[in-house]
């Protein structure tokens, strides 16, 4: 794994570099408090602790019980998820929960997952030199696209988050470090 001297770091908002690299996802940390909720989160500041304690009721509900758009404004949080807000988990992290517009926080996705599907690209994309392998991996509750290394590639194979240097082309002006999924040998 190439690492330290490569720059620029690509996709820096999606992962935490350093050994071992971990992908960051977002989750809701509190239901929107009426119309003023978006004012409580500044763009780009999704670190833990930006939400005042006590704005969210405790408790959890089963996955999938919070349908989009069903959360009424200012009703408090009888339905809360792992981050203390509604149950929404999203990738990449964003400052607002896409479901209830409550404040969001980041958390680390599991380092290990499963390969859902894959391909080897044989034509230049402008962002990677062929041939290159990409695929979707299931990490916890999200399905994430990334470069693949190792193999052989097969659906259902165990994968581990890693970092590689790709010779990025026109879009990035040079090589850079990106996250990738190491596909375990059978």
């Amino acid at each position, binding site marked *: 794994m190439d690492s330290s001297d490569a720059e620029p770091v690509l996709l820096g908002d999606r992962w935490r570099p350093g050994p071992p690299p971990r992908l960051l996802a977002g989750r809701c940390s509190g239901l929107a408090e009426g119309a003023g909720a978006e004012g409580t989160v500044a763009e780009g500041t999704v670190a833990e602790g930006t939400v005042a304690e006590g704005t969210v009721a405790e408790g959890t509900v089963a996955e999938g019980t919070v349908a989009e758009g069903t959360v009424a404004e200012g009703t408090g949080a009888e339905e809360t998820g792992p981050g203390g807000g509604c149950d929404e988990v999203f990738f990449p992290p964003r400052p607002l929960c896409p479901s209830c517009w409550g404040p969001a926080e980041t958390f680390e996705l599991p380092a290990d997952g499963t390969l859902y*599907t894959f*391909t080897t*690209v044989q*034509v230049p994309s402008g962002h990677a030199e062929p041939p*290159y392998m990409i695929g979707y991996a299931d990490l916890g*509750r999200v399905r994430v696209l990334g470069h693949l290394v190792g193999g052989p590639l097969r659906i259902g194979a165990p994968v581990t988050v890693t970092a590689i240097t790709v010779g990025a082309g026109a879009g990035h002006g040079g090589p850079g470090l990106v996250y990738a999924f190491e596909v375990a040998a059978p």
Partner: protein
Amino acid sequence: MTRPAYLRSAAVAAFGSFPRRRLEDLARPAIVAAVRGAELTPGEIDAVVGGSYASGALTAQRAIRGLGLSARPVLNVENACASSASAAAYAAAMVSGGGARHVLVLGVEQLSRQGSGLVPLNDDDPDVAIGLIMPAAYAMRARRYLHEFGVRPEQLAAVPVKNRRNGSRNENARFRQPVTAADVLGSRTIADPLTLLQCCAGGDGAAALVVSAEPGPGPAVRFAASAQSAGLDTSDPRDMARSALTASVARKAYEQAEIGPAELDVIELHDAFSISELMYTEALGLCGPGEGAGLLERGDTALDGPVAVNPSGGLLARGHPVGATGAAQLAEIFVQLRGQAGPRQGRPRRVGLTHTTGGGISGYDHAACAVHILVRDQNGHGG
């Protein structure tokens, strides 16, 4: 109170690669043929709605130059592959709502000037930055589909074989040479399991429609439904072997038209890749998940089958000048329903559907999808 909207006329200009032509020269033959076919004068066109993806700013205004169609509402719709299909939906709504009597829909695109054979995508999209290109996205769908349903690559290859055979009868198609399954599987790999002949080509082209409150000369073709939607933006694990967006937009269209998939006689659907046609025949409800290959093998979707799919040759043979495709699909259904499809007219057709979908952006399954259902009225005006 809404009134019916009719597809009064339709015309397609030759699709291909024309980097030296000006945009207006690409568009003019289709516009002139459509307006003349409607037996209208340019002055009677109330509005122009253009659909294009990546041909520069103000594409519609540039394309109508020199034709006496300016100085009225002119709107540009950009919805990736579904650009002119979305434009047609908007035109039908304008006519139905009484805001216009005759609307010209123009799908036009000129991608040949952009160099690469790949459809241009946004650089700031995180998936694009990783190296996702449209063939790779569909290759990964295909991989999953083959895995889940036990379908073989030879069955994927049957899609371009059928569509290139249909396209050989279409004078406006870009690729008119029939191919065999061996040709398809032996062509170079783009992103496995997809080979070159399983991927549509971009290029240039134009198609024009007149959507009107009254049918024109000849059999009347009416919009029975026009449904469209953006895909769902979500991080939840997505089923890549099925198309949820196409299924939901089709469901809305069937409800609007009060017509079910079993009543369809002819379909133009978005076969950007071989896998696409199998997944979309399933999502449109012609058959169950994983059964698209069998449907094709039985000949049900052949030119003379009970429901011809892509009689024009589809994107695989006609070519896919992105924004022009939806209008070209509607134009094909128009001639099929009127019995004017010449050498690619199978049996008589009364009910047709177009399906246009696409747009590869992170978070969405597809950026936009549009489904129209057209019906030839038995006792329509002029019919």
